[in-house]
């Protein structure tokens, strides 16, 4: 049952990813990404990490994808007649490179030591994570908040239209 579900949601995820890459209009890419994230979220649940699954839905689907959709709408992009890839040679070269790359990654992930240290699946509840976040990882966590503050200011500066010397004078 679990294996079946896992494979099914895995295929859903990959299809979503494929949709992102091959969609002609950016808005379809964004919707495909929602599908991929939904599948991923299910995979997290199957691995027993309900918290990350929830975050995935809330932040990725709820915030980031919405951001993408918002920008796509804002920019009013036209649907392209064909996929905006480079030349055929470039696509083939990219395909070969990616193939080789993913093989290497797979080889790294399938290292034997991960399987040797396999334990019983334990559900990591939020308590453990929160405790770690506010003790051992307090400093990175706080620095991250500062980082976000800097980010907000940076994005404000970036996105604000320059009234004096804008591009459309």
């Amino acid at each position, binding site marked *: 049952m*679990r294996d079946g579900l*896992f494979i099914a949601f*895995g295929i859903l*995820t*990959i299809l979503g*990813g*494929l949709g*992102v*890459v091959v969609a002609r209009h*950016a808005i379809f*890419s964004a919707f495909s*990404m929602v599908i*991929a*994230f939904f599948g*991923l979220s299910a*995979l*997290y649940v199957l*691995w027993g*990490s309900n*918290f*990350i699954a929830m*975050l*995935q839905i809330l*932040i*990725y689907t709820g*915030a*980031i994808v919405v*951001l*993408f959709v918002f*920008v796509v709408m804002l*920019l009013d*992009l036209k649907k*392209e007649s064909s996929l*905006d890839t*480079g030349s055929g040679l*470039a696509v083939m070269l*990219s395909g070969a*490179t990616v193939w080789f*790359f993913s093989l290497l*990654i*797979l080889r790294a*992930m399938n290292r034997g030591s*991960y*399987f040797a240290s*396999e*334990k019983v699946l*334990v559900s*990591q509840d939020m308590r*453990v*994570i929160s405790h770690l*976040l506010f003790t051992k*990882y307090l400093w990175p966590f706080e620095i*991250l908040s500062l980082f*976000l503050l800097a*980010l907000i200011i*940076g*994005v404000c500066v*970036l*996105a604000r239209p320059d009234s004096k010397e804008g591009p*459309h004078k």
Partner: protein
Amino acid sequence: MIPIPSTLAQWSHYIAACLFALGLFGFLIRKNGIVVLMCIELMLNALNLFLVEVSMRSSHPEGIIFVIFIITVAAAEAAVGLGIILNLYRLKGSVHVDLFKSLKG
């Protein structure tokens, strides 16, 4: 060439690798700046899947912590990236990445 996955963990690795490969592929071939950013998100999510899997199987919560950090940074990156895209669009009226070559040395 590719062995058939035998365990759930191996399936998970295949899914992650596949997602990563898709992200990288789109990243390399697509010219739409927004889609390029989305592909980066895909790659990050592939990594997240792997981290969750390893963390849950070995009972080390650090993996989960990292995932939280990665999600935060990914959100930040998407925000800044889209801000830049927005500015570039204002500048050139398009988000086609090949148009932006002013960093040429």
